[in-house]
């Protein structure tokens, strides 16, 4: 079981390539207001994370996700269930 910090650094690593050029991704970064993610970018991130961790991420968690931290918290919960 990975720690929150270990998961966070992996999530940041997966979000960074989807961010606009020159914008750095941090724990408090807001996916929509800071990185201009639209639904297609969010789905692209979801697929990357699903492949990396061999899980399915239910769409139902997405309304609770605004920041990289929110996403990491949800991911940790899902990995805890596997």
């Amino acid at each position: 079981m990975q720690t929150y910090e270990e998961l966070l650094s992996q999530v940041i690593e997966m979000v960074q390539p989807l961010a606009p050029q020159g914008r750095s991704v941090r724990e408090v970064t807001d996916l929509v207001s800071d990185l201009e993610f639209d639904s297609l970018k969010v789905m692209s991130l979801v697929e990357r994370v699903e492949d990396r961790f061999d899980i399915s991420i239910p769409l139902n968690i997405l309304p609770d996700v605004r920041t990289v931290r929110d996403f990491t918290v949800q991911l940790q919960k899902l990995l805890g269930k596997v």
Partner: protein
Amino acid sequence: MAIFDKFQQLAATRQALSESGIQAISVVMDQVVSATEAVVNGQRVILAGTNNYLGLTFHPDCIEAACQAVRTQGTGTTGSRAANGSYSIHVQLERELADFLGRRGVIVFSTGYVANLGMLSTLAGPGDVFVIDGDSHASIYDGCRLSGAEIIRFRHNDPADLDKRLHRLGDRIANTLIVVEGIYSMLGDRAPLADIAAVKRRHPGAMLVVDEAHSLGVLGEHGRGMAEEAGVEADVDFVIGTFSKSLGAIGGYCGSDHPELDLMRFANRPYVFTASPSPSIIASTRTALAVLRSRPELRDRLWGNARTLYGHLRDLGYTLGPEPSPIIAVRFAERDKAFAAWTALIERGVYVNLVLPPASPDGGSLLRCSVSAGHTPEQIEHIARAFGELPKPIAGLSAA
């Protein structure tokens, strides 16, 4: 954030699009001349963006049936079937559809959207799981959301990805519904339904729902859709469809062999709380269904037109959807070029659908043409010629 702030981006997009003088996202047809022609902004156009696959909207028998129903049964039912009762023609249409689809039972809905919303939200609930194709129609997403079930998306038309996700569910498979479409409305590509059905069989307990909105009357020896075409109707637990495309009216249906289907009328809130279809709609739909069944040559004509137009557009160098289909998606990497092309096509007498992100599947923009059995060979040539005449910078032939 104030209530209306969230619409600001939409307002800016609409403003940018409306500067050409024609409202691309709120087109008004001043006059509808026939199944394939209308007048827009004083300009006569060939309709190539209507989903009118069999061209039945002006069929004289359908019009006569609708007129007759209005005269004898009135203009509307003024309430839902649960509250006000059914008209006999609602029940007759359900019997005729069940006979056509080879299903034990059918429920008729007031729109195709309500059919998906009602069936999906009723079939599943909290604790259940939907595994849906990523390119599913909004009505599928909305129905799944309304159910309170868990929603998992698999990669578009990828049975191996579906298989992987079903495998991950373990014991929850008995509470799982797979949802796919026959033909996808954006790119016109078909579901690999034989492979998807095989995946379903490898996971006993899972159920399969197929939305045949764009494939009813289009695919299969008898026009029943993709499941008939792929020879897997027995694997499909619930087949959903619409009257607003091949049948030229409005409404929806769900057919199934599960006896529980009839019970769902009472638990199905979108069905219980929507006024039932008006008599004229049911009458023209019944007649259109009879035409669909008795005139398979309409499907041949539709496919002939689809292949001809797809071939012309491909030869012109456009980037298209993956296979010839009555939905032909012309792909553009840039929104502005798609919009300029859409406007130029109107000026050349051709109306198609402009599809912008995020409605389009991969972030690009589309000009979506839908072909009809009602198009004459001359109209198909006219549409192709109009695309051929688009100025090179607009056409962006290397796009997408």
